[in-house]
């Protein structure tokens, strides 16, 4: 006598469980039918009216068994025949069936596979379809994280999370919904692009934390990346079309958050500066003082090749060295370069003069201001903080404790 088992063949958990039951020992012949692929099987089961997502089906002895009933049939018999002493199925067999159904749902979510829909031939479980499900699911997680840990606006954040979990639910449970999205991508119409870009803008604007927003963009573009991948797979025999893989790679490069592979990185950050003209502003510079108590600002261009303001000092600080140590280095560097400086050039102008490539933080190039500042005449270096009004007048200034210098 044979037993027919109708189960979810795409579910990793179900598939492995059913195949490991070793039912041949009891029933002789076991026919396994996946409810995913064969439309004739789907039609047959649909007519019976069972909810195949909440339980698998067994056809045995001309009777149909569903869910926990089917589970008993399979389970009892495996016990009777005596499993090996230690077997994962023996452990699973002791778990109530409802928990196994829950396990299946979790497995499907993790796999990005939707529920079984007997009315559709294709249950939309291609890698592109999975990417849509993952995308919506992860966007929900991100919005929920933002809501719980970082949000000030509970209403807006709550609405977004609910909206995304609903979309995510639809993507897993409703094949028609997923088909619509898929067709929308395949249409590549102007309507699609406008809609897709609008959706991206809405989500990004609702997630204010920059890191989370960058991760969100990645998940928002994930379906597009996999759409291109599917196009690549379907057209890779066409020599001219297969290079579409590069399109996918470039989109990945632009959207993967935190990508920084020197000298390449995925985009200069966005920021804005708000200036309050009703208040004075502050700035700072390293200043040399000579033995006549004249002062001159030390040009940051002398730190070339890397001349972005503050970065070398940041590295110095990061290594655990003191500010005094950095100031001593600045002076030693100045002393070393003074033979060039006294010729009227800054060090980066040594070869090309005034045609030299400028410093990254654009600098003065007048080296003549250092005429009275030969290293042996310099007595100290300090960092001076200036408070400046909007007429350019220094309202106040304060020195970091000066470092008395030793010429090496």
């Amino acid at each position: 006598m044979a037993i027919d088992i109708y189960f979810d063949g795409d579910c990793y958990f179900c598939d492995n469980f059913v195949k490991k039951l070793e039912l041949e020992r009891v029933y002789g012949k076991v026919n396994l039918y996946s409810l995913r692929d064969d439309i004739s099987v789907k039609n047959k089961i649909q007519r019976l009216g069972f909810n195949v997502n909440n339980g698998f089906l067994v056809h045995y002895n001309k009777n149909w068994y569903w869910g926990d009933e089917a589970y008993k049939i399979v389970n009892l018999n495996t016990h009777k025949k005596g499993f090996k002493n230690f077997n994962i199925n023996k452990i699973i067999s002791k778990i109530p069936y409802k928990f196994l159904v829950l396990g299946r749902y979790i497995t499907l979510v993790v796999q990005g596979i939707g529920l079984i829909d007997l009315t559709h031939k294709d249950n939309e479980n291609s890698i592109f379809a999975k990417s849509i499900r993952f995308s919506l699911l992860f966007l929900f997680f991100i919005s929920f994280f933002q809501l719980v840990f970082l949000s000030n606006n509970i209403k807006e954040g709550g609405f977004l999370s609910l909206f995304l979990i609903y979309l995510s639910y639809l993507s897993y449970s409703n094949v028609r919904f997923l088909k619509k999205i898929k067709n929308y991508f395949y249409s590549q119409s102007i309507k699609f692009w406008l809609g897709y870009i609008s959706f991206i803008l809405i989500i990004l604007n609702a997630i204010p934390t920059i890191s989370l927003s960058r991760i969100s963009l990645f998940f928002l573009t994930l379906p597009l990346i996999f759409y291109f991948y599917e196009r690549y797979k379907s057209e890779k025999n066409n020599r001219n079309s297969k290079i579409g893989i590069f399109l996918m790679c470039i989109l990945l490069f632009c959207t993967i958050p935190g990508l920084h592979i020197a000298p390449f990185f995925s985009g200069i950050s966005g920021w804005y500066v708000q200036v309050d003209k009703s208040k004075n502003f502050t700035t700072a510079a390293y200043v040399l003082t000579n033995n006549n108590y004249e002062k001159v600002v030390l040009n940051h261009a002398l730190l070339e090749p890397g001349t972005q303001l503050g970065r070398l000092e940041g590295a110095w600080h990061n290594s655990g060295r003191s500010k005094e140590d950095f100031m001593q280095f600045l002076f030693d560097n100045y002393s070393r370069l003074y033979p060039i400086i006294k010729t009227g050039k800054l060090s980066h102008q040594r070869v090309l003069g005034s045609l030299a490539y400028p410093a990254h933080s654009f600098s003065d190039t007048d080296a003549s201001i250092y005429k009275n500042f030969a290293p042996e005449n310099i007595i100290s270096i300090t960092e001076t903080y200036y408070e400046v009004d909007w007429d350019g007048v220094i309202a106040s200034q304060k020195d970091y404790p000066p470092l008395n210098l030793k010429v090496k």
Partner: protein
Amino acid sequence: MNFTKKFDVYDEFSKSYNRLGFDFNINVTRILVCVFLLWKLLSRNFDFYGYIPDDVFGHYTVDMYPITTYIRWTGTQLVTDIFTMHWVHWFIERPGPELMKFIQNMSIVSVSLLAIFGRGPKRIFAFLSYLLLIYLWGNIFLLGQEVDSISLYFGMLLVICFCNYEDKPIWRIGSSFLAKKNIDAGRTISWFYLILVAYYFASGLRKLTDLSLVEWFKYDLIWEVEQTMLTANITSLNVPNVFEHILFIDKWGLFLPPLVYLSHIFVPLVFFKRSKVVYFFLFYAAFHFMTFGVGISFTGYIVVWGCLFHYREWLTREVVK
């Protein structure tokens, strides 16, 4: 507007990527890239890094930005050391000033050879140039400066290293002028475009993730220029005098940054419509010049779009699509 009209990016990309191109243009780009690199090399003294204590190296990108603004999975020591060739210092000591000077001189020779003779046997001049240059600039990156108007040129140098085209020494460049269009040259030119497009487009996407649309209009650009000019009077920063003449724009300056952000987002269009490269050149030249107003020199990028000009087509008055 017909909203159902198809704009199939995949197809358009394939068509545009596979268009035919002239080897002459690539040879010109090679020379322009080399000239720029030589300009930069002759304006810098890398022996500076021979004087920096060893323990100061290692201010990686992951150390600079807070977790709320940066995802810490690349920009780490391992990745940065590998890609800048500084992994050699896992085994050997950092070079002193003399050796750094020697490496810089080697780079100058190698880039000069690349400009004059082309890529050389087994593309040795191109690869050697890249390796030496990335090692030199790696010093900058390891000390906390990840931007130096150099990424695009490194990108184009990689294209020269890896893509196929008919390479000609400088004295035989005339013969490539007469050569016919071909698919290999076309694809190489496409990669030059993609390097620029990816750089600016990624920056455009960061403006979408890092700023809300309201914040796009919050950048007090002109006031920041004014502040930088006043700062420049006291410190060693510099702002060209010409910026005094734009201060009248005042609050209207709020609309300038969004224009740049939009251009970043729409920059992929130039890949599909290459005849428009001149407009992008003009726009980005103006934009990068504007950054001088806030004390940042992106000199290298002012002219970078010029590397993509259709020199061969223009000289023969051929129409570019």
